């Protein structure tokens, strides 16, 4: 087990290395003068020179890469071109809200989607199945921000149950946190629920056709035990996989949702940085999200053996 985790960890190194090279080249290989792109149209020659200097754009490409990569390994991702603050500090300041919302989203999604998928498969070809499938197709088709605005319109403007926008950290009081985090989490959860419910249903349908399910039912095991203990455990691996690969969707969704609900998390930070062409921050965010994605999928792979003891590493 430990050997397997180590092997998988080592295998993520080339992936992250290529991401780093890619992020590095993204700016440098853009047609035109990178400094001019970053500074915008109204830049003075002095400003351009300052940006070139800051990013080392005057050095040969290889020298630039080695310097940049060396600093990155030391945990130095540079300073923001706009505010001059350290990028690592900027990102870590904004991490809290995003992590809280993301965790809440995952909990909501799994709690909703897995039972939905199980019931849809159990009552295959009935109206429940049809409703679940319709929801999951719909969830893929409506843009995240439209869902956000529909929820705001209903729950914040018409019903006035929760504030329209904003964020409060759990330390400001659990009630304040939940009332502001619930709409963004539900918004984000829609597409995730659609994805997980669909996969759960497909995977359960396959398992429910197996002989051991018929055997379990024949010997009088209660139906909910058959469904959740016998069937779901055996259907778990594809569901876990989709939770892992769907994590990229979640990260993309965070970027949009934080803009809709005015949440000061890393999604907003990224959008602001991209629109202001604050390249050091963009670089850091792409590296961070890619790293998180790779890590989550590693955890998912390792957790297979927990759900399915037949898988041994």
């Amino acid at each position, binding site marked *: 087990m430990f050997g397997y985790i180590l092997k998988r960890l080592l295998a993520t190194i080339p992936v992250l290395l290529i991401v780093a090279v890619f992020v590095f080249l993204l700016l440098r290989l853009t047609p035109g003068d990178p400094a001019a792109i970053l500074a915008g149209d109204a830049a003075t020659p002095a400003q351009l020179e300052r940006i070139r200097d800051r990013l080392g754009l005057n050095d040969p490409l290889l020298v630039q890469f080695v310097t940049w990569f060396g600093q990155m390994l030391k945990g130095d991702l540079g300073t923001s071109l706009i505010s001059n603050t350290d990028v690592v500090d900027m990102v870590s300041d904004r991490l809290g809200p995003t992590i809280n919302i993301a965790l809440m989203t995952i909990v909501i999604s799994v709690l909703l989607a897995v039972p939905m998928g199980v019931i849809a498969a159990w009552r295959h070809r009935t109206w429940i199945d049809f409703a679940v499938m319709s929801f999951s197709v719909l969830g893929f088709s409506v*843009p*995240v921000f*439209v869902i956000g605005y529909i929820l705001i319109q209903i729950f914040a403007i018409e019903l006035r149950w929760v504030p329209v926008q904003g964020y409060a950290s759990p330390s400001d009081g659990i009630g304040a946190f939940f009332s502001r985090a619930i709409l963004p989490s539900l918004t984000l959860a829609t597409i995730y629920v659609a994805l997980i419910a669909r996969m759960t249903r497909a995977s359960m349908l396959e398992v429910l056709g197996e002989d051991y399910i018929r055997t379990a039912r024949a010997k009088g095991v209660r139906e909910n035990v058959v469904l959740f203990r016998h069937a779901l455990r055996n259907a778990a691996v594809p569901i876990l996989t989709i939770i892992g690969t769907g994590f990229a969707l979640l990260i993309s969704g965070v*970027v*949009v949702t934080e803009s809709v609900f005015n949440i000061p998390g890393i999604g907003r930070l990224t*959008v602001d940085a991209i629109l202001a*062409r604050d390249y050091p921050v963009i670089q850091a965010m792409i590296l961070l999200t890619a790293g998180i994605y790779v890590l989550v999928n590693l955890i998912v792979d390792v957790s297979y053996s927990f759900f399915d003891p037949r898988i041994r590493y």
Partner: protein
Amino acid sequence: MTEMPSSRRSAFQVLTGVFSLPAGARLGAGPTIAALVLALIVLASICAPLYVPYDPLAMDAMSRLRPPSDEFLLGTDPYGRDIFSRVMTGGRVSLLIGIGAAIVSVAVGLVIGLLAGFFRAADGIIMRIMDSLMAIPAILLAIALVALNGPSLSSVIIAITIPEVPRVVRLVRSVVLSAREEPYVEAAIALGSSMPKILIQHLMPNTLAPLIVQGTYICASAILIEAILSFLGAGVSTEIPTWGNIMAEGRSYFQIKPGLIFWPGLLLSLCILCINLLGDTARDLLDPRMKKREG
């Protein structure tokens, strides 16, 4: 030399084969309705200049934020432009981006995937690069690309395409990997067929069916990503009305004019819903094994 049956078909024969229904199979009501609705939206978008009552770009300070009326079917936006005219015209660019992105990603992914699947030496490197690209969230990559390359139509299509390519490459590669073990491919290699001929004539037809399905999904997701890019301020230039741009302008006026987000959102969602449904139908028709599993 005998004919090699499964590979000696013209592209046309392959295509008609792909779309002919299996004996006794029937299309349900769902896909038929989806196809009709989609055709209606596409037609209405293409013909928009013929019937919309106002110039979608004409601003009029005298008629800002009007409610829906006989004069303005859906009301007017903060610049006094007719929302109905803008929404109907906006579909043209959104659909163009969807179709453009689907064609470009399938074409690029097909070439890279064929090479990766066929040449062992290139496979490892290509797939590592594709894995890395997939680790970067599509939206982040796309907004970064647009921010660096400018808000032109082609740069938005490229920005949407790049994150999609790895998925196409994986698909094509997996099809090629299994097809190249088939006796007719081995026979072609043994007969000394040239490499391009094997790739194009023998391997490529196998990828056609899954690529059509994948292409529909990419088209749907490209329309969605265009809207998100515009919404975040990193889409096509705001002078061009697209569904995304109209919704982006509606952001600050959401509480007084929700229609600016809801109408384009509705049309866009309907469009994506239909494309996804047709994609699912195509997948079920082309891959009966899948259908059985999905029910």
